[in-house]
């Protein structure tokens, strides 16, 4: 929206670092901090609660479970929970793609899914769209389409399968986690949480090398993780209570939402491109505003053939069609 509609699409120059690279670095940094903590005893902790001393980014599901299990109130953990809620309002479901190691593990085991996400072009082709609208041709044809007299009208957003608020099986698991924690007096889901178990496996391996302490955990943890990630293929969207809670909270998220530059988006030029929706791991459409399931992974921004998608801190005031026309007229006057 910063560029005027008349400006031709410049060929992709030096692009900033890809979102996938940035995410890899963040997840790597978390594992590095755990590794450093194991060697030099920093006490940083794992993703269950990671931070300096007792100021930690605490797992909101775990913390709610301890509230239920202890049937009591403690100020310090409650403040940590409030902080996590506020952060979630700021960054939405970013945990799922920027910190959680499960998504990496899932993609490792489900290659076809990875391929689908990795290659937007194939995704478009697989979806059975007219071949000429495949991403590659979109880019080549775009200027031509713009120039042609019979320029097709802008197409409406595709819409993703998981746009809008989703109350689904994950929320049952969340309710089950909290109720059973209350009933049995300990945080139940933490016992089988794949995030916790992944770090437990790392720590188990360290204990094996450092203290020669081999335990059944080294077999049991990976077995549970594999059951959850490989057998229950859609763990994140079907079972994960963390995603359930974060999606509820990120309804209130107004910042760092994907924003599509409609002047650059191929759909505005009548090209039926839906690389962004097809490549989205959360199956949402960045053109739509109400997408609490968006994990801000930036795959759509990485794949968009016209680089039209950004994640600005604050969204531009949403323009209605009338306002857009008005601003175009004003642009013309200037």
């Amino acid at each position, binding site marked *: 929206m910063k560029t005027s509609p008349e400006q031709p699409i410049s060929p992709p120059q030096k692009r900033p670092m890809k979102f996938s690279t940035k995410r890899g670095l963040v997840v790597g940094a978390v594992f590095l901090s755990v590794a450093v*903590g194991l060697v030099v*005893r*920093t*006490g*940083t*902790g*794992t993703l*269950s*609660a990671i931070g300096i*001393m*007792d*100021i*930690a980014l*605490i*797992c909101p599901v*775990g*913390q709610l479970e301890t509230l239920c*299990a*202890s049937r*009591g109130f403690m100020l*310090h*953990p409650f403040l940590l929970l409030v902080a996590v809620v506020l952060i979630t309002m700021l960054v939405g479901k970013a945990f799922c793609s920027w910190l959680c190691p499960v998504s990496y593990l899932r993609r490792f085991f489900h290659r076809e899914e990875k391929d689908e996400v990795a290659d937007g072009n194939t995704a478009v082709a697989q979806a059975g769209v007219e071949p000429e609208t495949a991403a590659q041709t979109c880019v080549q044809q775009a200027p031509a389409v713009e120039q042609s007299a019979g320029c097709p009208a802008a197409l*409406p957003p595709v*819409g*993703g399968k*998981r*746009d*809008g*608020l*989703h*109350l*689904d*099986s994950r*929320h*049952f*698991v969340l*309710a*089950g986690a909290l*109720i*059973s*924690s209350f*009933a*049995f*007096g*300990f*945080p*139940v*889901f*933490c016992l089988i949480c794949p995030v916790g178990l992944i*770090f*437990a496996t790392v*720590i188990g391996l360290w204990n094996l090398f450092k203290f020669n*302490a081999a*335990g*059944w*955990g080294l077999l049991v943890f990976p077995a549970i993780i594999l059951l959850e990630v490989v057998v229950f293929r859609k763990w994140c969207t*079907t*079972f994960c209570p963390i995603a359930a809670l974060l999606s509820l909270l990120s309804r209130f998220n107004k910042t760092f939402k994907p924003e599509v530059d409609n002047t650059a988006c191929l759909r505005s030029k009548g090209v039926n491109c839906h690389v962004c929706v097809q490549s989205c791991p959360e199956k949402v*459409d960045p*053109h739509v505003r109400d997408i609490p399931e968006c994990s801000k992974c930036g795959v759509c921004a990485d794949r968009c053939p016209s680089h039209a998608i950004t994640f600005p801190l604050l969204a531009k005031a949403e323009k209605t069609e009338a306002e857009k026309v008005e601003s175009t007229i004003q642009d013309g006057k200037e």
Partner: protein
Amino acid sequence: MDQSTKRPTMTRRAFVVGAAGFLGTCAVGGVAVGLGGESAALRPPGGQDEDAFLANCLKCDKCRSICPENCISTGVLEDGLLNYRTPKLDFHRGSCTFCDLCIQVCPTKALSPFDKTVDAIGVAVVDSDECIAFVHGGCQKCVEACEYDAIYLDGNGCPVVKADACNGCGVCEYVCPSSSLRSYSGSNLRGINVQRKSEEASQ
């Protein structure tokens, strides 16, 4: 094609899967409590109220990670599902100096403030089958190591623990040479072992 305006409602499938997930989570809790058994695991200082400790521990690993004495390890399957991955003290690797770091890092306050002169992690109990002083005589390593004058030698030169003075720091167990000086007996016990207070009372 225009799905963006369609409000998604819960499908029957989501309901069935969700109900299964709900019951599954409850089953995990029930099985863990059912097979939990009574663990003898010693908790880090401040975690002696077992119910409150289990309710609040997130298994986040911070206490184990920060312990400068290496004496915190994590529960294994043999400790029961409930204690799986929870921190427990292992005085074969080090003993507690009450540096309070584990209490300070605990984000959920599963470890509460601990006063080493009043509270106790557990109490040391001499195992006369393993203790070198009982079997061969002459060893008084634990008596020398105890900072709290909680162990003395009786008339036969055998160590006796003053339960009231012992706060369960574990230094006696840590220095006990029974495992290295005596032939391997197959037990994981040393000549003196810290146990939970209640268990000592029941013996």
